[in-house]
């Protein structure tokens, strides 16, 4: 699995570097223009504010690189290539999850370094971008990446997974369910069974979406206010009562639960549709 991730990172490293370049130079250029006109943000000079926010840009750009990687791997049917390599289905599933997450994990120390640099330059850190906030943002972005991958698997459930195969687990290499799994004569019973399969596939997929919805709700309760910076700093929403470390741990736990859910779906999935 690690070899697959390492190779993936080697191949996609240009995406990460491009995302960092675009994600930092773009906003900085905009703030240079604002600084030229003497604009202030929260009492900060625009350029100073941009420099203080640089760690967040780096982290965000790393996550964007993760999404680009997910999209590229999906559009180029990478799993089909990887599935032919002598690797277990668990390794394949984990590698899919770890590769985009690794982009954020690589971005995290870089953004911490940028935060240290910004602090050294300005004397004081931006109040909303301490190291703990960066950790929470990283956890939150990791969760969003995992939710994206889980959504991909849930979508595949309806189209390519027979509910019997899904519930029973991989049947390869062992006898199926005896007379019950034998084909029925053509005609009405077979068509009825087919309708059941389609309905069951839809039900499985819908259940999957409910699981994802529950995970998103949990994340909203736990961490959104402090990790997305959508809400003003200091607003108390969520069960963590403003403790960012608790919030980070809870968000990370949710990301791990989501990843486990995705791995379970992937391992029972048919990789080609008829």
């Amino acid at each position, binding site marked *: 699995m690690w*070899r*697959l991730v390492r*190779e993936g990172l080697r*191949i996609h490293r240009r995406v990460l570097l491009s995302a960092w370049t675009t994600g930092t130079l773009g906003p900085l250029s905009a703030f240079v223009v604002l600084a030229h006109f003497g604009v202030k943000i929260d009492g900060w000079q625009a350029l100073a504010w941009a420099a203080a926010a640089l760690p967040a840009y780096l982290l965000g750009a790393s996550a964007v690189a993760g999404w680009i990687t997910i999209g590229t791997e999906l559009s*180029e*049917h*990478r*799993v*089909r*290539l*990887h*599935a*032919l*390599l*002598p*690797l*277990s*289905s*668990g*390794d394949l599933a984990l590698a899919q999850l770890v590769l985009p997450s690794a982009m954020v994990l690589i971005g995290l120390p870089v953004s911490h370094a940028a935060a240290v640099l910004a602090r050294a330059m300005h004397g004081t850190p931006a109040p909303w971008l301490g190291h703990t906030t960066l950790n929470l943002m990283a956890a939150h972005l990791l969760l969003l990446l995992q939710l994206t991958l889980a959504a991909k698997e849930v979508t595949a459930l309806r189209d*390519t997974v*027979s509910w*019997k*195969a899904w519930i*029973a687990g*991989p*049947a*390869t*290499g*062992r*006898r*199926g*369910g005896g007379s019950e*799994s*034998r*084909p029925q004569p053509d005609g009405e019973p*077979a068509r009825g*069974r*087919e309708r059941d*399969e*389609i309905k069951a*596939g839809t039900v499985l997929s819908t259940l999957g979406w409910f699981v994802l919805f529950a995970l998103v709700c949990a994340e909203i309760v736990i961490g959104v206010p402090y990790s997305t910076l959508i809400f003003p700093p200091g607003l108390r929403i969520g069960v963590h009562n403003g403790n960012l470390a608790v919030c980070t741990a809870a968000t990370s736990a949710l990301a791990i639960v989501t990843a486990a859910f995705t791995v379970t779906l992937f*391992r*029972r*999935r*048919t*990789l*080609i*549709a*008829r």
Partner: protein
Amino acid sequence: MSGAPAFALTGVEKRFPGFTLGPIDLELEPGTVLGFVGPNGSGKSTTLGCIAGLVVPEAGSIEVFGRRPDPREGAWKADLGVVAETHGFYMNRSVEENLRFLSRFLPGWSQERARRLAGRFALPLDKQVRHLSKGNVAKLALVAALGHTPRLLLLDEPTAGLDPVVRSEVLDVLWEVLEDGEHAIFYSTHILSDISRLADELVFLRDGRILLRSGKDALTDGWRRISFRLGERDVAVAAAVEYRRVRAEHQVVSDDGEATLAQLRELGAEAIEQSRMTIDEIAVTILKGGSHVAVG
């Protein structure tokens, strides 16, 4: 494991909405080529996917070289070389980089052999995959499948999109693969001219079911198109797969020409004429499921 079949499918079934494959019972011995023939949507790719571990069947058992392919461990896949409809190569990377990627995972991979095959197929190693023509991507898929000299080759329409010269080169390479008698090829196609050169046996598949499995020579020897004159009424002809009559002129396609001819002589048929059929004609007749037409 010596002596074990390259693969063995027993009662394998896979259901998709609107389509059921199987139950399929199929075996392939090392050193042989099995042509898997069927129209689009008949389940060829799904069968191949079951063997390659890309499709999880609902029922049945699969063995590859005597081992049950366990998805929890992937070592058994090292014996397989697969050319599938969808390849999954890194499109923004060169052919060489894609081959190097594979070399890091496939035991027994020879970059030298891969380069030699690429040379034979005139495949540009330095070109990005996204800039390759459809035919060149097919060539890359073949090189990728052959680079580690797998014992079982699973080929799904491998020559689709290739020009006749390269197609011939591909078939030559596949012949060479078979030379040591240990390798087996499962060749799914509807280009029958390819298969008739390579295959020892043919399996015909329609609507997810195997219609017939037969040796290639037995097919070409046994199947005949026979015409004769015998009264203005339908005749129950032995071994007839297809029957047509226009007044007293009868025409049958028989899967046992000798038996049919003997019966017609006994019945006193006149102006009997027979001709051998090509593999293409035989395949079309089998996959059409035969017919009975009478006029006048």
